[in-house]
């Protein structure tokens, strides 16, 4: 079963972190991903640039509108994501608890929804 682990933290607080600590946290993240790859639980993922770089878009009546920044102002911002393969929620929670920023912010674990059931049968 696939689970998406969404990593959130307070960007301002993290930006204030001394450079050596930030570098060490990033090295931890690399090690975490390597570890998840070795155990076969890692399907993909990436850290994200800060919400300063975000653009939110909407399409209404076929018309595209874009706005600066994230969809909602929150105390913690989306900072990255991991797509994980796990046996069940308990294993997903165990895996996600090893994501280094979990010590600073929070990690939301969501099961992935399958769209396949909605695919129309192919005309042949």
């Amino acid at each position, binding site marked *: *079963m696939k689970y998406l682990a969404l990593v959130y933290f307070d960007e301002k607080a993290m930006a204030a972190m001394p450079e050596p600590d930030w570098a060490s946290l990033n090295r931890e993240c690399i090690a975490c991903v390597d570890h998840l790859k070795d155990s076969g639980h890692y399907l993909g993922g990436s850290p994200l640039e800060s919400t300063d770089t975000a653009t939110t878009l909407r399409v209404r009546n076929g018309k595209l509108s874009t706005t600066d920044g994230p969809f909602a102002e929150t105390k913690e911002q989306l900072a990255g994501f991991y797509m994980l393969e796990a*046996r069940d*929620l*308990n294993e997903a*929670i*165990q895996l996600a608890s090893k994501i280094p920023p979990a010590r600073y912010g929070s990690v939301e674990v*969501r*099961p992935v929804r399958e769209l396949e059931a909605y695919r129309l049968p192919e005309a042949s």
Partner: protein
Amino acid sequence: MSEPTTLAMRDTLNTIYRTESRRVLATLIRLLGNFELAEEALHDAFAAALTQWQRDGVPNNPRAWLVSAGRFKAIDQLRRRARFDASLDDIAQQFDLEHEVSVDDSSDEEVQDDQLRLIFTCCHPSLSADAQLALTLREVCGLTTEEIARAFLSTPATIAQRIVRAKAKIRDAKIPYEVPAQAELNARLDSVLQVIYLVFNEGYSASAGDQLTRNTLSNEAIRLGRLLCELLPDPEALGLLALMLLHESRSAARTTADGDLILLDQQDRTVWDHAQIAEGSALIVRALESRRFGPYTLQAAIAAVHAEASSASATDWNEIVGLYDLLLRVSPSPVVALNRAVAVAMRDGAEAGVALIEAILARGELADYYLAHAARAELYRRLGRNAEAKSAYSQALALTRLEPEQRFLNKQLAELAAEA
């Protein structure tokens, strides 16, 4: 078949339902991997028992019979549905195959594990606290949604919806039906203990709702506590059961016939339930011997010191303060600090207690907690500082909506006014 025999069989089945239905359900959920399917299967199994046992007599092992019947009914059900959905046929076949290889689905050990699996699943921290409570009372205790609704002053529709959502989350997020691995066990057990204690407190101190419902909840919590101690005798599980028994031992002395509150120091200690006190105290000894005890055991130990004293003045307040010191270390909270302050007042005098409570309030903690103000008021009154007592009682009164508490506080205010 004659009418009286049917009635006798219904009685037998009712008894078996009471003792076995939760265990059968716990096993069926494991075998079928689905709460709804298991509940339907449980229902169908008992319906089948009514006709078949009538004819063939009660089987030697009713539980095993019910599990097996429930499982076949579920497979039947899946097959019937499979006519409309091919993917279900695979599932039904899978159950059939697994059945061939399973050794004994209803051995005592396996059934105990199933009950634990059910408890840990219902108390999974990924479910909201409300959902954990409702699901545990429904699935583990077998209360109806109507009974749960009455106990929580809610509507059956709300409770039913809460349970449906929780089951959907268990299914969709794939919360496994398992006893957590050793590494996670302590954290997960905390969550179970919390649910049980919440159920107990809802019954013990619930504001409204009729007395009968409240007793139901306290009794269910104690029953759950006993079950957990049987299945997983962790020191804190023992401690929690002891704590509940010791609180419950005072229930007959806690209120007057009119439902007015009686404080601990004025309770008639001869009506305390001494069997419950003895059972609780024995559990505390076991928990303390483990040296892995925690906050529940310490709270129980405090309750036991009270229980062993023949009167409030004969209480070993020094020991109680010492236990609160330990409790503050393992689980610091302003409420524990408040209780410690009251114990200090009993040991060292009201002045010392008031100073501690005022310090807690000065830190901005418990300002909205009526008991902090009620305790302060009581101590001021003992010191003869009636103006401060009156103001503190009034603050407490403004902060509680519970009717017996309001009556109690109004009575204190009236007495103060009479003294003036």
